């Protein structure tokens, strides 16, 4: 059993499908979102995304009410699309379904087609994605949306030297780092989705209702002609994998990789890139690797005292587990709220993974908190919802992944590649150093001083 409570999920460690799909669409050039359902879904999702990135996040809703629900929401959806176009002038509209519209059986695709015909719309791509809240977590929603985008745009394309990269759970700063690495290797890549500018917009004094940047439709369209796809999504179910779709339909070889966090995961990513493109690792990256190795050695004694609980989406958690293992941090609890078939197996197959550690999919924070207490965990690594465990158990939380809404700077966190990994290691080691330094005087006094005194007397 992956949860203490059998019939309830207590303190969820996952979000809904529409959340993931929204994140994905935010990385498409000129994209706006409309959620087909009741008003609250869009508002909750906006609040979560907005506080994570500290950016305005506009998501429209078809705002269904009771009457619309009985008669079907087609009228509302069409009306909503019209208003979104009026206010936002988007190039792309992602239409996401919700619990409500999926349950009443709305044919969203047909409604969208009808709308496009009626208004003679040819220059706006309206892409419906089925994202019922009960159909999976934000993890599945994300890949489902990316896959729909690929299916929408990608068609027979001329072969080219470029590589497709499905970014997965990266921050804007990490996507920028990814681009830097690709530039160093002189590799052309279609990066999907690309949130580097859209969710980390430079200040200009203006509020752009759709910020500049994002993956261009033309780049997605050309994906079928690429040399290969690299998908950061080790645990993506094949039916939701955009890379698998490109492979099945256009024979684009798929390389499914863990997020390039940690030395070995970054090695694997760069090796894959170099294999595909036939390039050599430039000195700059070799130096960065050397510096990471140096950092790992510098901090290995601190990290060796770490007993960590990891939680979040399957990709972030898997990468964090790999990082812990190669640095001597004991990954005592490795957990995701997402129900995922491969996660447990993949984590357990990591080199040197301790058989006694708890690996949990489809779990909740109530369970994680209990284990944290029982196992004497001294380091939490995961998203902000771990703050409750941090507060109750007094264990420091290194905030990574999504969402981080109780700290600033989530958009700037950079933990991929050799440089990013070193920055993350600094955070883990410093948290352990901080705990030790702030407590060692009292601890040593309590452990030894009184005993000596007692003997003396």
């Amino acid at each position, binding site marked *: 059993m992956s949860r203490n409570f059998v019939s309830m999920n207590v303190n969820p460690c996952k979000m809904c499908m529409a959340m993931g799909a929204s994140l994905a669409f935010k990385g498409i050039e000129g994209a706006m979102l409309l959620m087909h359902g009741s008003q609250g879904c869009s508002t909750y999702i906006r609040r979560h995304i907005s506080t994570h990135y500290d950016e305005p996040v506009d998501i429209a809703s078809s*705002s269904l009410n009771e009457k619309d629900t009985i008669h079907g929401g087609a009228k509302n959806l069409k009306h909503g699309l019209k208003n979104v176009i009026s206010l936002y002038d988007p190039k792309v509209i992602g239409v996401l379904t919700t619990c409500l519209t999926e349950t009443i059986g709305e044919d969203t695709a047909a409604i969208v087609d009808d709308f496009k015909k009626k208004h003679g719309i040819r220059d706006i791509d309206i892409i419906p994605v089925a994202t019922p809240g009960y159909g999976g977590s934000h993890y599945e929603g994300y890949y489902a949306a990316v896959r729909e985008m690929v299916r929408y745009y990608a068609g027979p394309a001329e072969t080219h030297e470029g590589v497709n990269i499905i970014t997965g759970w990266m921050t804007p700063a990490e996507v920028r780092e990814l681009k830097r690495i690709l530039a160093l290797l002189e590799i052309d890549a279609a990066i999907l989705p690309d949130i580097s500018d859209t969710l980390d917009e430079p200040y200009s*004094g203006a509020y752009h209702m759709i910020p500049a940047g994002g993956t261009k439709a033309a780049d997605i369209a050309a994906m079928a002609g690429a040399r290969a796809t690299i998908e950061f999504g080790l645990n993506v179910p094949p039916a939701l994998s955009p890379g698998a779709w490109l492979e099945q339909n256009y024979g684009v070889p798929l390389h499914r990789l863990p997020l390039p966090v940690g030395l070995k995961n970054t090695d694997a990513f760069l090796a894959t890139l170099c294999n595909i493109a036939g390039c050599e690792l430039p000195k700059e990256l070799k130096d960065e690797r050397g510096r990471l190795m140096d950092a790992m050695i510098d901090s290995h004694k601190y990290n060796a005292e770490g007993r960590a609980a990891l939680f979040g989406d399957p990709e972030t958690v898997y990468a964090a587990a790999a990082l812990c293992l190669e640095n001597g941090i004991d990954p005592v609890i490795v957990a995701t709220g997402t129900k995922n078939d491969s996660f447990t197996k993949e984590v357990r197959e990591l080199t040197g993974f301790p058989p006694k550690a708890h690996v949990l999919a489809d779990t909740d924070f109530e369970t994680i908190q209990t284990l944290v207490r029982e196992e004497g965990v001294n380091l939490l690594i995961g998203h902000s919802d771990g703050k409750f465990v941090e507060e109750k158990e007094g264990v420091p939380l290194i905030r990574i992944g999504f969402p981080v809404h109780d700290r600033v700077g989530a958009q700037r966190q950079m933990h991929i590649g050799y440089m990013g990994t070193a920055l993350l290691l600094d955070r883990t080691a410093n948290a352990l150093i901080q705990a030790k330094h702030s407590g060692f005087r009292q601890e040593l006094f309590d452990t030894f001083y009184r005993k000596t005194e007692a003997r003396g007397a």
Partner: protein
Amino acid sequence: MKPLWVSDIEVLFAAVWRAKQDFLYRKRGDRPERGIKMSATLKERDSFILYNDKSERGLACNQSSVSGAVSQRACVYCGARVVLNPVADAVHIVHGPIGCASYTWDIRGSLSSGPELYRNSYSTDLGEQDIIFGGEDKLKAAIDEAVKTLDPSVIFVYATCVVGIIGDDIGGICRAAEKQYGIRVIPVSSSGFAGTKTSGYKAACDAMMELMGEPESDSERDPLTFNYLGDFNLAGELWILKNYFDEIGIDVIATISGDGRCEDLKRAKGAAHNIIQCAGSMHYLASKMEARYAIPYTQVSFFGLDDTIESLEEIARLTGSDAVMERVQRLVARKTAEVEPVLDRYRQRLSGKTAAIYVGGGFKAISLIKQFNSLGIKTVMVGTQTGRPSEYETIKFLSDMGTVILDDANPSELKHFITEKGADILVGGVKERPLAFKLGVAFIDHNHERKHPLAGFEGAVNFAKEVDLTVNSPVWDMAREGF
């Protein structure tokens, strides 16, 4: 059947026409061929927006959001959850798929002085199979497990969108569980689509009425007993006010719902008066309690010095006790002497600035206009998500000619009017913050997530301090100057 060549010509003609339209579109920047015009505001939103001309014309409000307009509102469930969840010793079970429970887990700043059950988010986490076969068994099992593991005296069961559709009989399940376990298990009719956020407030109030139960035989009520409605103890605001209440000698039976307790709610019907802070959510409960338990209610506000003083005096009048009034006057004199010099310093730094307001309820907006006024700040835009007609009238009365008043505004309108009016400060919720910052406008967090109290004398100082630290920050000079 037309000859082939006719349709060919049609196709050709259509292609030429399209090319011409596309050319025009590029040239003019609009898109005439769609028949959809670009604009900063939608025509159908016109009646929800007005420039204050001090005329009789009212503002449209209390209606469903316009589809596609990007309303800042949430849903029925959200309304119910924010109002009911602060009842700290109840188990709050959300019956539905995971999202609703996930997005509302412990995100609000409602504090408890004791039990913390309410800080957990319990969900039946419905999956695809449950949607097909119904979620009743799961809910029954969840209630069983909650009773056995958590031993609560009250369980609230929130309905979400899907359970309204798949037809789970939540009411029946709750009644059966009450019988089986001898505790209160109360359904909350909060299906997301069944109304607006305001309907959710009502659903929460109905659930609390259910807990309060039947009226008791008329006994003498102590005129010094009150219930305090519509304070959610954000950042301990309720505790600040309870200190005042203690000092002036009135007895608060139930605080609804901040730092709330199930037993207090059950005793609430014995109070002599109800005083309401957040009218948007609690006016309904107060009028229900008046009808059922004959408890009269009075609107108060503890935001800003003037409102706080006025409200304390009003409470004293309600008790009919000179002793209470005397204690109020002493408290007011002491506190005013403490905070006035501090506020004066802020006044000098803030006078002449202009503010825009976009908040949840009308009453909060009214308090804010007064607070800004007292700091020498003019309000140039006021909007709310769920304001009522009478509140918009008061807003018109309080604000200057030309002030923009909005109901259920969206980012596009906020951007448009904040810019048009050249506001220096926006006060709003979490979603409005980045919008203000992008425009280079200072921002005040007046939302449920804040960690600093804004009520009472202490809150008035905090408010002035917050306005000062944002609007007078050095970052704006650099933002304006550029490179």
